[in-house]
């Protein structure tokens, strides 16, 4: 299982773009990269998933370099409600149940 490393915490201000990077040096060929968001007293929520290059949805963008040893979650124009813990997970389609949650990044958005 690929181990992931993220910054423990980040601060930002409303309206700014936030980039959270995750390192996964031993990512396997079949592994996908998935990001989750967790608010207090709630279960984690799927944000975005990718395999390589760039993926964008209505919430975020995910940038994955060619060597796939890291990935960056980009949140455009954050608001106070984006204050949460963000987790990146690395795993393959047939083994998703064995993905391991790292420590996550606590993002605090300030007014």
């Amino acid at each position: 299982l690929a181990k992931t490393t993220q910054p423990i915490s980040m601060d930002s201000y409303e309206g700014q773009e936030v980039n959270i990077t995750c390192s996964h040096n031993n990512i396997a060929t079949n592994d996908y990269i998935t990001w989750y968001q967790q608010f207090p007293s709630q279960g984690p929520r799927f944000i975005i998933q990718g395999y390589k290059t760039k993926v964008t949805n209505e919430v975020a963008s995910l940038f994955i370099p060619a060597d796939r040893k890291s990935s960056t979650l980009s949140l455009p124009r954050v608001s106070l409600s984006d204050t949460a813990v963000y987790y990146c997970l690395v795993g393959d389609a047939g083994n998703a149940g064995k993905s391991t949650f790292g420590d996550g990044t606590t993002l605090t958005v300030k007014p």
Partner: protein
Amino acid sequence: SAVISQKPSRDICQRGTSLTIQCQVDSQVTMMFWYRQQPGQSLTLIATANQGSEATYESGFVIDKFPISRPNLTFSTLTVSNMSPEDSSIYLCSVEDLRGVNYGYTFGSGTRLTVV
């Protein structure tokens, strides 16, 4: 994505007792997962529950302490047995959802357990 209903949402229990947590999914799923999240910590996988077979437990978790049932493809229970204050945590169930070409997890809202 699947919708998960988890009950109870919270409970305060006496040490030495047991609590059963229920997880209901609105669609049939092969695998269901149970996680523990201790205060201020990340999520730790307790076990994987497949319908029709024994649950598979992760290192550090045993069936006697956390018995799991999986009677059908939409329902599972996790029991926290002989509780102690160290069992105070949030317990979450999750399922795999197809997200485009690969799978991601959908989680229930969790059960916040306090053991006194």
